[in-house]
């Protein structure tokens, strides 16, 4: 991952957080908060909620620093996952009982430069060349489902509205898309 290469000290900073080194925590925040804020903001699409999420995320990182080990993935992957799960939980809670409309679902596209939607961007800019290649191999609807679910926190129902396909079809696209990605990328079982 490019994050860990461009900031080679994240491991050290996190290790020092585990020793209750507040300065290291401050440095870790300075180095990573803009990325994590962008990730939660993209999912929540609400600055206030995203700020609350980010606060929870770093408190969690500070409290869990001692539990981190290499088996939990690269530091940036671990931290980003904490951020995504927190944002998704908050999104689900905020949206509980609120039915998403096609208009809401479309709003996400306007965040990006014209010409390239979020799906295309995510695919083009994925750092991992293999991930890009494997995403490219997927049927477009499957690829769209995976990217919108992962980056924007879409649910099955929201994808169904967005893509105009039945929920059952969406679920099947996702399931098969994930299987195809795994087959293409490998890893995890060897």
């Amino acid at each position, binding site marked *: 991952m490019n994050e860990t290469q461009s900031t080679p000290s994240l491991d050290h900073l996190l290790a020092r957080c585990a020793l209750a080194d507040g300065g290291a925590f401050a440095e870790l925040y300075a180095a990573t908060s803009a990325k994590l804020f962008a*990730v939660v903001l993209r999912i929540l699409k609400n600055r206030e909620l995203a700020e609350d999420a980010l606060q929870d995320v770093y408190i969690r990182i500070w409290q869990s620093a001692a539990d981190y080990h290499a088996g939990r993935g690269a530091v940036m992957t671990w931290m980003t996952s904490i951020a995504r799960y927190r944002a998704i939980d908050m999104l689900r809670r905020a949206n509980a009982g609120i039915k998403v409309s096609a208009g809401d679902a479309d709003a996400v596209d306007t965040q990006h430069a014209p010409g390239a939607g979020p799906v295309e961007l995510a695919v083009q800019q994925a750092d991992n060349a293999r991930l890009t290649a494997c995403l490219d191999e997927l049927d477009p609807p499957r690829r769209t489902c995976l990217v919108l679910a992962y980056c924007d926190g879409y649910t099955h129902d929201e994808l169904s509205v967005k893509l105009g396909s039945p929920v059952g079809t969406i679920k099947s696209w996702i399931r098969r898309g994930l299987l195809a990605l795994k087959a293409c990328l490998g890893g995890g079982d060897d």
Partner: protein
Amino acid sequence: MVVMTEALTPLQREQAAEYVLGTLQGAQRVAFERALADNDDLYAEVVAWETRLIGLTDSIEPVVPPPHVWRAIEKAVALPAGRPEAPKTGWWQSLVVWRSLAAAALLALLAIGIPTLLQPPPAPELPPVYSLVLRDSAQQPLWMVVCDWRTHQFTVNRVAAAAPDAEKSHELWLVRKDDAAPLSLGLLQGDELHGALPDNANWRGTKALAVSLEPAGGSPTGLPTGPVLYVAPTPI
């Protein structure tokens, strides 16, 4: 790992993937998280998916969070105010102390958004120690610099600055008041730079630090020749 993940059922594998993707919802998600806590195989499967998909976040442009978020975090975790854990060795101690102070000062600056003294001098005559942050136009911190006018030393830590093109160098300058010529503090290379503040500079006469783009190896004239890319005024 083969043996470990073979312990999982197809349903568990599917749920691990959809958990990471975010589409595992409601009671299923809660139950999965509960199972995750004490099932190492399941956890490994989740990490494998997190690692596979993390590249999707590369297209998401960083957004600097507002300063009050850090203030709230700092308060919530009751940070030991930059106090490092008792270190075992001398070099580590100095490194941690230094970095902690630098980082604390950086965050203080980020948090308050106004010039902040790291350690207000106990006596007005005593020279200050302060930190400043060189930022790009998007306010993203690129380098943080700690100037210790007591020891006449400075330290630069790279936060997120990218290296210039091969035939260019980033040069750091101390900008003085009263239109005195800027003084070079050296080239910004690597993640950390230590150096002495020039003898003919003092804290009262220093207005700002600046970074200019120079030919590789630095300015041939001893004065900035390229565009000044970033400027950070001194806090006092």
